[in-house]
């Protein structure tokens, strides 16, 4: 659906790249036409923001399902879809199909499987999948254990200038572990892997990235040791980027008490010191973006003994509210919060969106940052309510959302 009539949103607080200021935004032909001290043109549709934030629609980097109601609830207008689909996104036709699957009111940017069937061994047709619309390459939920394969993958990706989205856990250490080694896992009798499994994987992939010149993005970096490695690589001027989901800056492995499978995640929840390290890394810019990791899982996957349950959480609806807690805790300011969930992921995907600026796609969210609500797993828009934040009171809701200038 195309935008029929220009729209001007007035009386808002504009969330710009470097500041928040009072003003308006004018949207025409699906693009942001003017920002700032703007007055509606005759014939415009006019929306009064009543002091709410006029923010870019969220760009969710690395989701496992196209779950529109949840994304729209969370103010998400675009998402990078992980290749771990059924069937796997490892051939151009599937990539082309999913790239269209959300339109018009939601855009899916496919991440192509790095290897056929995500087997970690045989390279997939990455070049053809790029032509079909892939915006990056991903190793999926797993690490590629074979360093030789990883080297060749990164060489190839560098040649195609596609970002490689890595899962950073040394599989030899993690095995079938369901938790991070520590007192909590020991008390619960859960098989556990040392948190260092992440640093090992990150260290290798950074070394290979520097060797090949490939752009590497670690979808989730969740431990102090691995964050130090990313920080050091960035200091050397390398194009390594890192993401995280709210689970790892909001929760620690204490959330595993009572074998709560909604807290079964991959990578698993870490200890408190790592949670604090993640918050520090968000504050100092080591972490570039925050994503929901949206992975709705019904009772058939979650109403199981902890270790047998599938990892993953439904995170789309709670992403913005959780990031806004970082603003209230003065870890980051508002412009940075929206850069973490919109600007940075849009740049990584190389799409003209994720910012309130003239010439951008008109993906715009109206946000009441203080609106209180209670996260309730039974009343979620997502196709499943597996949120580790169940029952938690929070603040911040999207009150209106436009995709390409059209209200959704």
């Amino acid at each position, binding site marked *: 659906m195309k935008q029929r009539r220009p729209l001007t949103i007035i009386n808002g607080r504009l969330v710009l790249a470097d500041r928040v200021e009072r003003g308006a935004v004018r949207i025409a032909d699906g693009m942001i036409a003017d920002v700032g001290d703007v007055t509606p043109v005759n014939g415009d549709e006019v929306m009064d923001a009543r002091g709410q934030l006029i923010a870019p629609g969220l760009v969710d980097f690395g989701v496992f399902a196209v779950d529109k109601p949840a994304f729209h609830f969370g103010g998400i207008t675009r998402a990078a879809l992980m290749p771990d689909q059924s069937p796997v996104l490892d051939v151009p036709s599937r990539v082309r199909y999913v790239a269209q699957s959300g339109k018009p009111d939601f855009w899916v940017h496919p991440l192509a499987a790095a290897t056929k069937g995500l087997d970690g061994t045989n390279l997939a047709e990455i070049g053809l999948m790029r032509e079909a619309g892939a915006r990056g390459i991903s190793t999926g939920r797993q690490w590629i254990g074979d360093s030789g394969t990883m080297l060749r993958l990164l060489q190839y990706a560098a040649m195609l200038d596609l970002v490689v989205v890595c899962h950073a856990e040394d599989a030899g250490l993690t095995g*079938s572990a369901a938790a991070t080694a*520590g007192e909590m896992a*020991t008390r619960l009798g859960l098989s556990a892997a*040392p948190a260092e499994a992440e640093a090992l994987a990150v260290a290798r992939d950074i070394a290979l990235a520097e060797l090949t010149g490939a752009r590497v993005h670690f979808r989730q970096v969740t431990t102090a040791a691995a964050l130090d490695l990313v920080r050091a690589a960035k200091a050397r001027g390398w194009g390594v980027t890192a993401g995280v989901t709210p689970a790892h800056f909001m929760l620690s492995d204490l959330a595993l008490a009572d074998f709560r499978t909604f807290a079964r995640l991959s990578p698993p929840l870490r200890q408190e010191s790592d949670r604090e390290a993640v918050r520090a890394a968000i504050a100092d810019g080591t972490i570039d973006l925050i994503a929901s990791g949206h992975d709705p899982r019904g009772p058939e996957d979650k109403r199981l003994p902890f270790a047998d349950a599938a990892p993953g959480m439904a995170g789309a609806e709670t992403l913005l509210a959780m990031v806004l807690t970082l603003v209230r805790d003065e870890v980051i300011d508002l412009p940075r919060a929206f850069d973490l969930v919109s600007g940075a992921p849009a740049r990584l995907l190389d799409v003209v969106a994720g910012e309130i600026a003239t010439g951008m796609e008109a993906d715009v969210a109206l946000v009441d940052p203080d609106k209180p609500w209670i996260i309730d797993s039974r009343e979620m828009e997502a196709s499943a309510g597996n949120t580790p934040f169940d029952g938690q009171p929070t603040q911040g809701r999207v009150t209106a959302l436009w995709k390409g200038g059209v209200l959704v």
Partner: protein
Amino acid sequence: MTSTQHSPHSNRYPAGRMAFPHRDLLGIGQLERHEILYLLDEAEQWVTLNRQPSKHNDALAGMTIINAFFENSTRTLLSFEIAGKRLGADVVNMHAAQSSVKKGETLIDTAITLNAMHPDAIVIRHASSGAVALIADKVDCPVINAGDGSHEHPTQGLLDALALRHALRQRGAAGDDFTGLTITICGDILHSRVARSNVLCLTALGANVRLCAPPALMPHGIAGMGVTTFTNFDAALDGADVVMMLRLQTERMEGQFIPSPREYHHLYGLTKRRLAQAAPDALVMHPGPMNRGVEIDSDVADMLDRSIITRQVEMGVAIRMAALDVLTRTARGVPGWANKGEGQWV
């Protein structure tokens, strides 16, 4: 000894349902010290009964107990079956091999199916940590955890405490608990639910617990449970009052944890020579099944004056009778236990 005889009006713990307010017995971790002592004291009457020629009581007559074992077991299953039958209950055993679990039925559906048959208690063993709590959440009757993964095996922890208390009392110790006692547990701590339940139970009762294992079999962060850890068995044994040996749970091991049983025996096997480093009359325990010649030598396991391994088995039946008795009191309308809502005082 008189102070150790259980009496319903003693002030060791609150009376009636308040003495044991839990519907289920899922782990030692859920129990207060006085609740542990209550179950131990309750078991004493069954120890006495079990030593009579006629070992029958009709307390649970008419009740149905399902032993749902999703993991193989011989001794624990037998112990629970005997416990139920001696209390007069109808006991049914369900083995995983015979169940529709193999046909893809989920654990929750199995639980709901069992529940629909109106059992009065379900005893569950499952290979996955937390599985028993998951089932307990879906059924209407008391649930006893007979071992869930590497998490807990509460009746084993309790029976070990009871066996130890009996042995100590035989030697003239008067205490209720194990304050001041040093207990060394050696073996595959990582995979052992018995170790976890014993750590929780023994530390709650005041013992100093030492754990000893090769590093790969020692779970991370277990010192947080109030124990000291050793990798050198000789150091761990030094002056210990009780030595509890655990077997290697090779069936739970992913990959190789020790080079060979022979080498394991060399470093961690309890021999007579090694035992000499413990306190002069140190007691020897083992939850079974034993691998003689690996973690324990036969001449240690069979020491009449020191090994209480067979007594552990004996106490197992009594503890399980106590657990079944206590947990079904509400359903049986035992005075002081009937009110489901607030616990009432006798």
